[in-house]
């Protein structure tokens, strides 16, 4: 396990008397990508500003590589870089914008220029270097904004809803590029987002923030699979997120090794890629073991033992251990007819089209 890069201890922020942020303990580990998710107004941006040293917490402290951060410390701010939701570029050329942070740190002209060019290339904006920043499209401007932050090669990168202002195609292209770049560079990153797909695509771990309070910090599959409380469950929804690896892609259908099984899900993905297969319990059907080899339109069938039967309103959620936890929502009638009880063996099945794949590089 890598050591914490940034730690928050008993951090509270009060705005006008109201508690806007309450984080008892949070560690951002070296080299990890931590995605902070929560609805709008949950205090995500406040958390990011505290991390950036721009908002002093009312209580508690910040530790960077185990030493305490003083609020307003320029030396601390120069170890990190912040990217805001909509790109705020200066009225200069793209190249001057990308090298801005480097020049503010006193880096010389050609050295800063070379570094800016490198990151412009990596973000696919090298051909825009001589353009005025104000003439760029939204997607181009956000790429420039990201290049400006990444060119600093920060010890901690803070991203505040970096895709929220972009249209869908622009956003998915940038999301793919950014994920690839951050994984390759091993940049310790905190990304704040209200979008679960972004969080799942980027985050090694997820931190769930609701009403200013940090509720759960865990791997995506555990946050989705076993939410800390009902509010977290309600926010993340009832989807499961099953980790797997693409082993083949044929005619737009990916074969994904997950647990002991191989799943088929339509997806654009590359062989060898890590992915999350997202699925709703309503789409999972349970069958007797004899049906494992029988005909069915459900492409995905997994054998496993029932680990838990829990009442959820008028339905039951039956958890099956297939090497990963698959949850099926069933009616009380089905529960009785199939004799579903903990310890029993069963076949869980879902159609290829019921699942969706999130690429994690």
């Amino acid at each position, binding site marked *: 396990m890598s050591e914490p890069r940034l730690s928050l201890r008993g951090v509270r922020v009060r705005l006008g008397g109201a508690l806007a942020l309450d984080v008892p303990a949070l560690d951002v580990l070296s080299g990890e990508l931590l995605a902070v998710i929560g609805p709008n107004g949950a205090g995500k941006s406040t958390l990011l*500003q505290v991390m*950036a040293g*721009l908002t002093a917490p009312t209580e508690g402290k910040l530790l960077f590589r185990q030493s305490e951060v003083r609020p307003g410390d*320029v030396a601390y*701010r*120069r170890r*990190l*870089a*912040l*990217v*805001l939701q*909509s790109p*705020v570029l*200066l*009225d*200069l050329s793209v190249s001057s914008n990308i090298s*801005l*942070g480097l020049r*503010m*740190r006193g880096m010389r002209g050609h050295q800063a220029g070379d570094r800016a060019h490198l990151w412009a290339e990596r973000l696919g904006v090298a051909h825009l270097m001589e353009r*005025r920043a104000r003439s760029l499209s939204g997607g181009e401007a956000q790429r420039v904004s990201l290049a*400006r*932050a990444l060119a*600093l090669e920060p010890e901690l990168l*803070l991203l505040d809803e970096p895709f929220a202002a972009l249209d869908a195609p622009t956003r998915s292209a940038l999301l793919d590029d950014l994920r690839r770049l951050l994984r390759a560079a091993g940049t310790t990153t905190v990304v704040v987002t209200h979008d679960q797909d972004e969080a799942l695509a980027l985050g090694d771990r997820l931190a769930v923030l609701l009403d200013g309070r940090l509720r759960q910090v865990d791997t995506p599959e555990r946050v989705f699979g076993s939410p800390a409380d009902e509010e977290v469950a309600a926010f993340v929804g009832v989807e499961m997120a099953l980790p797997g690896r693409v082993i083949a892609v044929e005619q737009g259908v990916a074969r994904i090794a997950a647990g002991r099984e191989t799943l088929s899900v339509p997806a654009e993905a590359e062989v060898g890629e890590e992915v999350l297969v997202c699925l709703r319990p309503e789409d999972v059907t349970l069958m007797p073991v004899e049906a494992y080899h029988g005909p069915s339109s459900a492409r995905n069938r997994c054998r496993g033992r029932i680990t838990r039967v829990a009442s959820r309103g008028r339905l039951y959620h039956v958890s099956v251990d297939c090497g990963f936890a698959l949850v099926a929502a069933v009616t009380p009638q089905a529960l009785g007819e199939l004799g579903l009880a903990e310890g029993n063996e069963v076949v869980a099945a879902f159609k290829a089209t019921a699942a969706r794949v999130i690429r994690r590089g």
Partner: protein
Amino acid sequence: MDSILAGLRQAIALVLQRDPLVIDITLRTLLVSGSATAISLAFGLPAGTLLALKRFPGRRLLLSAVNAGMGLPPVVVGLFIALMLWRSGPLGFLRIIYTPAAMIAAQVVIASPIIAGFSAAGIQQLDPRLRLQLLGLGATGWQVVLALWWEARLSLLAATIAGFGGAISEVGASMMVGGNIAGQTRVLTTATVLATSRGDFDLAMALGLLLLLLSFTITAAMTWLQQGAVRR
């Protein structure tokens, strides 16, 4: 009408002849109002920046005072500076009343609020997230201010143009604290007033023409600079 046209011809001739008296008055006008604008910029720009960026008790009151100061009647400023610099006044020991220095002081009082007010408005118009983003990239306080000035440069040039305009066009304060002494404190505005009161309309028109020309040339130069700043 004929006499006006004749006077205009006479005035142009005076300007073209480079009459030493007229040149002397013009140069002094430039010196006094130019220095006053420079000093006002040194006061007004930091003051405007602080008012735009810092939140402190009494800020609104101060901002209202600055905004009110943008329309200060020059004669009131003249009276105030005269009272201060009068031999028995609190700053009387400086012995600068009826000198160009006193006129510069009066014009600084007139131009500073104009520059501060326009600068504050210009900087407040900037995207508030700009400051946050700059800090988030590791900028020091000074680097933030310089970047904000760059982004607000059009407003800041407009502020300077307005400040210079206020200084060069005022007559009341210069008359009261400068005394309109020939060869010492006579500037284009006060000389025009004097020439008109004497009925020397040719000279008055010549001086008025010069004043217009001067203020047009300088403003045009600054505007050219400003619009060049837009294109880049």
